[in-house]
């Protein structure tokens, strides 16, 4: 099974504006979380063989795996994210929408905290050891810095 990061929807057909529009339209928590879970289901599963210790970002409550591929020809940074928890995977889809296929400079310039704050999801990003998301964002930025 190939793990094609360039053709997955997030960062390609689904951008952060689409997600902001949808979430700001949904006003009760049930619809919002159903939407976030649905986003997660659209993120391609990371093949088992790639779920290695090196790609693992360990959280206290859930885990995240991150694959980063920098294409020197186009300068783009391609990302693959998976999680054992559905809601975390949905939140990861939002991170992908922001970062996937961007240049390292664009990744470093993007204010992910502002996005999550606007979506009223900051709580999930600021948990330092709970779900691994914060550490994952840090790892993406470190990779972007190394490629820039």
């Amino acid at each position, binding site marked *: 099974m190939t793990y094609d990061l360039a053709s997955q929807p997030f960062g390609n057909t689904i951008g952060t504006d689409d997600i902001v529009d949808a979430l700001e339209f949904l006003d009760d928590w049930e619809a919002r979380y159903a939407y976030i879970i649905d986003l997660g289901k659209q993120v391609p599963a990371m093949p088992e063989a790639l779920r290695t210790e090196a790609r693992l970002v360990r959280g206290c409550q859930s885990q995240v795996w991150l694959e980063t591929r920098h294409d020197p020809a186009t300068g783009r940074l391609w990302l693959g994210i998976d999680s054992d928890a*559905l809601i975390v995977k949905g939140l990861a889809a939002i991170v992908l929408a922001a970062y996937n296929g961007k240049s390292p400079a664009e990744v470093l310039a993007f204010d992910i905290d502002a996005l999550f704050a606007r979506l009223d999801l900051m709580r999930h990003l600021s948990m330092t050891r709970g779900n691994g998301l914060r550490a994952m964002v840090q790892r993406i930025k470190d990779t972007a810095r190394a490629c820039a």
Partner: protein
Amino acid sequence: MSAPDIGALRAQFPLLARTLAGDKPLVYLDNAATTQKPLAVIEAVDDYYRQYNSNVHRGAHQLADHATQVMEAARTSVQRFINAREDAEVIFTRGTTESINLVACSWARTFLKAGDEIIVSALEHHANLVPWQMACQATGAKLRVIPMNDAGELDLDGYRALLGERTRLVACTHVSNALGTVNPVRDIIAAAKSAGALVLIDGAQAVSHLPVDVQALGCDFYVFSGHKLFAPTGTGVLWGRRELLDAMPPWHGGGEMIETVSYETSTYNKLPYKFEAGTPHIAGNIGLGAAIDWFTAQDRAALAAHEDALLAELTARATAIPGLKPVGTARHKVSVFSFLMDGAHPHDVGTLLDQQGVAVRTGHHCTMPLMQRLGVPGTVRASLSVYNTRDDIDRFIAALEKVRKFL
């Protein structure tokens, strides 16, 4: 024993009256992580800072006398609460973790040698496991683990088989934080004593649910945290038998713990101050005394019966939900209902419960070896305290039903 007025008791906990986002009433079922605080505790801490804030044991003024007197009265409250022989055997610490580390650093590193053995149980919190691993690494001692069955009950025959002349210490939890199992600590202690070993009991999850009498138990050390017992965070207790504490070297050096100091050497203060270097958490310790005084003034037998009835009802109703699987089904349990939902990650369940105002804990509960033994990545844990009600359980069950439709 009459039915306790839980409504009146709840009214003493201001936080329980608050609502969460979306005006949802709070259903607080994370008591094994920390309990809420009654007014008696909040006001005791407030009063200290407003009326007599000062350092203890040294000031030549009225405020210092007052602070010293109230903090030492808190020590006496602890002594009575666990029926220690004398209050000098009660050491104030930052919590259970620090209490265990104190024994692991002072006692274990002084008295253990290569080949000695420490026994812990399969149910231990990392706080009653990692300090002993570290002590073993430093001394060459070995760690042995009491096995358990799939229900989460310790295997006492397996335990007796581990005991031997090399056993120096048995460090075991009174109540499992992850599963709620109440361990037969009397039997565990008696068997260890027959083998000539010392026993440390981790009472972090026990003291707010079960009466504790350290002399009747016959253990050598008993440790617990204040914050799981209605007291401020950053407070805790190490109780130890005087003969042992006297023989142990100090752990931290500094002020308060010394008698005389020269550049060449120092002599150490008497118990309990030998183990309380630096300015203590005066406000916290005063709050701990207030918490214990508040708790012991309640009809504890009636509150325990109330909690047991709630746990039985919660367990029965939650277990009836299709696809819900309890984790830990020991015959003797308090407070805790740990579970998994078919195909759902615990973190997802916890997040969706939180959206409905229900506060639970999810994850490995700082018991990773236990989770591995049970073959689960973690659990969702609901844990009760004296102020929970049938209404809390109704809301919890309704919230779980909704989660089930989601995932």
